[in-house]
Structure formats: structure tokens, C-alpha cells
């Protein structure tokens, strides 16, 4: 839990940094980088499999950088820091970078697809013990997590309020499928397929 609190502090710190940067920006009436918050459910499985069979909180905080100025066909680089609470496979902190394509229809509905990579630090879901070789007893030890890499894709379907009103807000349902490698045994179980289904909001702060 100590390590998780450390990550929580980093999470809050990044949020504060983002907000302060956002409020100082002066290129237009709104900041260049939107704040993206996703909240949803995490599951083990392939896309849309087991998505809501159990409650495993997923949270993420991120932003995106536009790569073109086409309002209909937009390309972005997106980055987010996430937290997954999972009492079965272990909770984790993850950092993802995605290349995003967004199609926005004239009705202001949009569809996104993204490919990305990332890393996560995963913690045991329970207390852990290690053998003390000097006396043959077991000691409870702290869990600093286990690092693994991710590769995945995201899809999202949402509505962009900023196209019709002066409110720089988007909301979407997103599904993120990713493969964690390795989990516990590279030979028998080289990947752990996972997904998260989220409500995603994106907001640009005023200068």
C-alpha cells in the first residue's frame, strides 16, 4: 500500500501540474492540451469478453497532442497514466502512449481508433513472503511491483460538444484491449489479455 500511495501522490501531482499549465496557456481561448479522464471497469479477457463480470476499477488521466488540423479526420498522440484495481491478477499503475485517429461526423459524433504501447507496474493482490535462508523462516516483504510491457488498441465512440457550442468538452465510451507480457510464466502463459471499458471525458480549460 505504501507504494500505491506513492503512485497516488504522483497521480495527484501530475493532475496539479496539468491544471496549472492549462491555466497559463495563451495561444487561444482554450488550452492546447485537453485533460482526459477515464473511469471504468477492468477485466481479464479478449476484447469485450468478461467486460462487466466483476468490478475492477480502472482510472486514467491523460492528454493528447494534435498532429494535424483537419477537423474531420484528426490524428493525435495521446498519453495517459492509469491505475487498475484488481484483486485477482494484482493492481497496477500503467503508462500508455497511443497513436489515435479520430473521425468526426457532421452530427458531432466521433469515432476513435488507436494503437499504443505502454508499461505497467503490477503488485501482488495479497501479502507476500520470502524465505529467510539463514534460519529457514519466512519474512513478510514489501511489494515494489513487477514491471511488464503492454501493447494494445483502443476504440471510442462519443460526442464532441465543442463543435456546436463554445463548450470544449467531449464524452465517449471507450474500450481498451491490451496484452500484458509477460505475466507469471513466459512459457505457459506468455500473455495476459486484458481490457477496460470506460467512460471518457475530455475538457479544455480556459486560459
Amino acid at each position, binding site marked *: 500500500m505504501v507504494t500505491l500511495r506513492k503512485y497516488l501522490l504522483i497521480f495527484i501531482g501530475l493532475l496539479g501540474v496539468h491544471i496549472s499549465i492549462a491555466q497559463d496557456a495563451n495561444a487561444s481561448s482554450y488550452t492546447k492540451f485537453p485533460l482526459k479522464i477515464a473511469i471504468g471497469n477492468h477485466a481479464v479477457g479478449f476484447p469485450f469478453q468478461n467486460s462487466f463480470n466483476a468490478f475492477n476499477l480502472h482510472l486514467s488521466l491523460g492528454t493528447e497532442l494534435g498532429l494535424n488540423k483537419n477537423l474531420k479526420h484528426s490524428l493525435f498522440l495521446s498519453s495517459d497514466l492509469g491505475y487498475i484495481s484488481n484483486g*485477482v491478477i494484482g493492481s497496477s499503475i500503467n503508462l500508455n502512449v497511443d497513436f489515435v485517429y479520430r473521425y468526426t461526423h457532421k452530427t458531432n459524433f466521433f469515432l476513435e481508433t488507436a494503437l499504443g504501447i505502454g508499461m505497467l507496474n503490477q503488485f501482488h493482490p495479497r501479502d507476500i513472503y520470502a524465505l529467510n535462508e539463514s534460519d529457514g523462516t519466512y519474512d513478510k516483504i514489501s511489494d515494489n511491483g*513487477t514491471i511488464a510491457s503492454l501493447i494494445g488498441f483502443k476504440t471510442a465512440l462519443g460526442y464532441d460538444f465543442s463543435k456546436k457550442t463554445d463548450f470544449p468538452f467531449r464524452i465517449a465510451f471507450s474500450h481498451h484491449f491490451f496484452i500484458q507480457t509477460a505475466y507469471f510464466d513466459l512459457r505457459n502463459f506468455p500473455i495476459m489479455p486484458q481490457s477496460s471499458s470506460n467512460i471518457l471525458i475530455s475538457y479544455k480549460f480556459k486560459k
Partner: protein
Amino acid sequence: MKILIITVLFLFMASSCTDDYVGPNIDTNCSLSNQTHTKSAALKNLLDANTKDGFVGMTVLVDDPKEGQWLGSSGYASIEENIKMNPCHIHHTASLYKTFIATVVMQLVDENEIALDDKLSDYISLEIIDKIPNGNSITILDLLQQRTGIPDIFEVEFITDFFNNQTKTYSIEELLEYVYVKEPLSEAGTTFQYSDANYSLLTLLINEIEGNHIEALKSRIFEPLNLNHTYFLEKVSEIPAALSNSYWDRYNDGKYENNSDVQTSLTVGLRGSDGIVSSAEDLMKFMQALAKGNLVNGFSQMINCLDVPAAIQKNEVYSGYGLGIMRVNISGENWYGHFGNHIGSGAIMLYNLDRDITIVALQNTGTFFSDEIKGKFFFQLLGDIEEILF
């Protein structure tokens, strides 16, 4: 926005709370004195070496009419409660269940209730048969020999479900749903393919004939042999106090977590594939009674093992499979019995027909997801015991 952030942080903190399982384990104050074997010291050293090299706790029994008996333990039954493993602790036996079920089936054959070449469809409802791969052509012998072509239950679909709800308990029919309408891997009666579905179907067969497989196991095996430390776990809430905790080295890095709740749920909940917990002494009694013809007439038929594919021989150690019986040959000796491979335990029960020697090894560290622990237990430990004995 502030409300959203506060809500998010609250959910984060709430979701970080976990309950760590502490087992119901008691110190059994075991006072057995089965240490007559001439190689007792070497066997004890072997156990101690293993519990310093990947196994939390272990019990081994060697029964040799010429050299004597040795029953000993090492390591821990409960790390949290500092309880040392002793020979009276009870263990999860996982797939040793298959030998028990095969024994009941062979008793039914002895009683002319069924015949080995009967079709399964003669006994099981068509509603199930029609959904089982090769369902209409498989025989009871195919099921016992695991030559039905039915895929295994414990493949990716089950495992991903398991990692979403690891304490779920399954009925036999729910487990069979994992193989329903799948393509058969081969024609029935041709190729060995280890599949728990085969023994789930045999369990259904026993239910059809005997009414209840649990009662059949008790009345036909546990009670006649006085297996007083052997139980069929029917409910998670009713587990024997002497049941050892279970542990898992999730990342194979020497960090162990207590997964007793998961292991117990699976022992209870993989109905038709699992369910028996027992002690080393009871398993020795069972294996010897079976081998000496006290339970079935056809033990020689049960150990008439057909070779398994080379890849299985290499990865799973056993070289042949009979009727609920594996043939294990590590260094020239043929052993007959079964392995039990699970997420928080491992079990070996073997009998050497030529030398009349029985070996039982039970331990409480998961082998199912770890090739390293699995290899150390099913291959290296057995090889080391053979080296000491012969």
C-alpha cells in the same frame, strides 16, 4: 471538476482495500514414528533441501517392504501462523481424483453394471451428449484412457474467466460448457489428449448409475479402507481443520502469497475434476489396496498404459496412460499412479509393481502455472527419491 476528482480519489482508495486470507489451519501435533526406512536420513535431507528451493511445505512417504517405511515433512503448513508442516496435515490432491473415479468405474465393470466398450450415450442424456465433441461415438474405455478427442476444459477461455472470478465454484455441467460444440481434436479412441472433461463425464456416468459420485467414493473407497483423513470437499465453509494452507509463487521469483481460498474454491468447485483432500498415509493405503486387487479385479488392465505423445512425455514426465493411471519412468523404473497439478498444491501417488514400493509426495506450492516448480516436483524430486532408494 472538483467533485469528479474527489469521487475518483474516493473510488481509488476504496478499491485498494484487500482482505488477506488466513487459513483455518491448526497444528495437528502429529506424533507418527514411521521412520524405519534404512535411508531415512537421506530422505529427510532431500525434503529439507526442497523446502529451501521453491516449496513452502512438503510431506513424503516411502513404503518399501524390504527397507522399511519413511514418512516425513519439512517446511510450513502455514507461514502466517508459523505452523510447520507435519505428516498429519491434509493436502489437496487435484487430479489424483481421476484414479479414484477410475476405480469406481472399474468396480461398476466388475459388478457388470457397465462394460468398458459401452457407449457413453447409453447412459448420459442426449442433451449433453449432442454438445460433446465426438459425444455419440466415445466409449467408457476412451474416457478412462483419455482418448476421446475432447479438448481440455482448462484452456484459455476457462483461464481468462478464472482470472475474473477465481473463487467461483462450477457444477459438472458448467465445466463441460467449456468444451461444448468445440471441434474434436481427433477421432474417438485414437489419440491421447489429457482432458479433465473425460473424467467429468465419467463422474456424470457414476451419478447416473450410483446416484451420487461423492457417496460412491465414500462408500466404495474411503470407508472400506478406513481412510479417516480423506475427505471430499463439498463446501468451502466445511473444510478439515488440518488442511494445509496453499501458496503460489506468482512470478517465479521466490515471493509467495497465500492462495488457500482460491485453491479450496477450486477443489470444491471444479466438480467432476477435483474434490478430494487427503493425507500421505491414506493415499498410500488407497494405492496399495488398488494395486493388490482389494478394490478392483482389473488393476492389470488399469495399468495397461498406452504411450502418450512425445511432447507430453517431455513436458509432463509421464510416458503412458492407462485407465486413470499414469506410467512414470524417469530412470528405468516403471511407476504407476497419478500426478495432481494445481494452483496451490501438487500431489504424487505412485506404486512400483516390480519392487512393491509406494511413494506419496504432497506439497502446498502451486505447480499449475509454473513450469519450474512443476519440473522440480514431478521430475526432479522423483528422480532424487529414486536415486536414494536404488
